């Protein structure tokens, strides 16, 4: 049984579907990458799983955490899970921290909730956590307000706060998007180090295949509220079986070899309220056939542990492209 098992989850805001049947599982300690353009539902998947979407969102399907259903669960079930078993950090660290509270206080709040620590022991643990995430002079910095720290440092604080509850899984929602490139690498390194030290699982949400492939062993590619392909990272690069995945790979600059023209995917993501008939990617797909606009394809197994939702996906051939080390 997987640690988190998402089955056929759907989310809609009014009549606009944001997620259209997602099935995904995360094993204990695993690092999973969730990739796709903005608005494809990557973040919504996890906000919905933790019950963090506004009440106006209609959530369907099932999310099992160690066999316990989270969708529609009461606050008494969800609150210990949030931050205690599954922690989440967000894209813009500066606005994700409360501007009127000292960072030490915000971390201590999580310690009190999930580990019952208060007073001096909590204070000591705050300093240890800040130290662990690489904040220099942690003792003084614990008294700082978020606006007194840089974006990268604030993201480190967010990570420290997430670690405070000793979660089994950390969901990092575009943790480096708002940061400078050099800081991005540092934060990704930090997440890697923490994973090594704590055996915590990681879901890394990103629009950047390069970032994800470096950190995660498995990748799920999302498009317009569905998972279109999921496989081991190496298999995604070696044998991309969905045209959208191929499009993403083609749009990624190789770090070595001769200069080559990058291929972009024409068109843009369909609006949630005007989803096309059949496969949502068909209007932008260079390989679409007549059937693509009739049938919304179900995921098929192209090889072991490799699913693709394309009616033209066929069982594996030999790789057309080898994994490369790429930097964002």
């Amino acid at each position: 049984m997987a640690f988190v098992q998402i089955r056929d989850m759907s989310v809609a805001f009014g009549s606009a579907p944001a997620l259209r049947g997602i099935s995904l599982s995360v094993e204990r300690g695993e690092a999973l990458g969730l990739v796709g353009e903005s608005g494809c539902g990557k973040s919504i998947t996890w906000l919905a799983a933790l019950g963090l979407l506004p009440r106006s969102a209609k959530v369907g399907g099932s999310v099992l955490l160690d066999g316990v259903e989270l969708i529609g669960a009461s606050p008494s079930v969800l609150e210990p899970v949030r931050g205690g078993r599954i922690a989440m950090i967000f894209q813009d660290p500066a606005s994700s921290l409360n501007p009127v509270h000292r960072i030490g206080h915000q971390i201590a709040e999580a310690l009190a909730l999930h580990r019952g620590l208060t007073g001096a022991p909590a204070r000591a643990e705050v300093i240890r956590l800040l130290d662990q995430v690489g904040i220099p002079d942690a003792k003084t910095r614990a008294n700082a307000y978020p606006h007194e720290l840089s974006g990268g440092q604030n993201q480190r604080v967010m990570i420290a706060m997430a670690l405070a509850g000793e979660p089994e899984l950390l969901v990092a929602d575009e943790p480096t998007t708002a940061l400078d490139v050099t800081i991005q690498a540092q934060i990704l390194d930090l997440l890697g180090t923490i994973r090594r030290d704590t055996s915590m699982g990681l879901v890394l949400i990103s629009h950047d295949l390069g970032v994800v492939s470096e950190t995660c062993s498995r990748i799920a590619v999302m498009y317009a509220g569905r998972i279109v392909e999921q496989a081991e990272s190496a298999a995604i690069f070696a044998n991309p079986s969905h045209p959208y995945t191929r499009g993403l790979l083609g749009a990624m600059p190789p770090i070595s070899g001769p200069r080559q023209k990058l291929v972009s995917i024409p068109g843009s993501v369909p609006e949630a309220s005007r989803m096309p008939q059949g496969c949502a990617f068909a209007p932008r797909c260079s390989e679409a056939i007549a059937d693509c606009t009739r049938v919304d394809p179900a995921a098929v197994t192209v090889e072991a542990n490799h699913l693709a939702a394309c009616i033209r996906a066929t069982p594996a051939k030999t790789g057309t492209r080898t994994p490369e080390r790429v930097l964002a």
Partner: protein
Amino acid sequence: MLHYLGTRLLRATVSVVMVVTFVFIVLRMSGDPAVVIMGADAPPEAVDAFRTAWGLDQPIWVQYLSFFKAIFSGDLGQSMRDGRDAVAVVLERVPSTLALTVPAFLLNVGIGIPAGVYAALHRNTAIDRFVMVMAVTGFAMPSFILAMLLVLVFSVNLGWLPSAGQDSWLNAILPIVTMGFGGAALLARFTRSAMLEVLGQSYIRTASAKGLSWSAVVWRHALQNAAIPTVTIIGFMLGGLVAGAVVVESVFSWPGVGRLLVVSVSNRDLAVVQAIVLMIALTMVAANFVVDILYGLLDPKMQSQTRPARA
């Protein structure tokens, strides 16, 4: 923090001087007190004597300078009506005005803030819509119309409450409700939008994602942030209370500072008007100053603005 308060104190002083100067000039430009007080058909010698006695025959800048000199020695001149000290004339009316404005202000805050917070937390429910309809009504209706409606219902039709005068504490109820309702409506409106703004912020999602219960999220993370813009509005309201009393005291014939102001302006009783205006300006400035201090306490960014920025 000291530097922060110092700058604001200096700014406050400048605004008081400007307000007082403006009133000084406008009052002297807009009508001759000698003619108003002595009567249009008074003998010219008497009018001239009055002018000489009050220094009105001096050039305006000489009057202005001696007026300023007098202010700093605490002397705002005498009432031209009865020759009493202007400050004393105003001060004896202050308790009456406070008897209306203090309860009205408590109503503003005590009803406006909880109503706004509640409406924001129950956005788009029937209660939210009800609060907003009341708020827009209270906000849009001029206080004298509300005052007359209240008089019509509670004095004329039901006969429960007196409509004018200061015979007992019952007389204070309608004016307090009039002033309290308008301010509460305004405050509810602003509190609601401040609260909605805050509830949409990422750090609220972070607080929930941390595992805090919704009530802890609201109490510990939302309210203090929403208080920052709300305090500005409260400051305006606090400063405007005496000014707002002008209309309400006139409608209910309540012998407070507001009514004294109306009477003194029409009589061109310069010293009294100036004393009242100075008092109103000082309350406004004091309210702003209190707001600035609260800002400093509520918003840590305000304090560090005056400190050297950290890298």
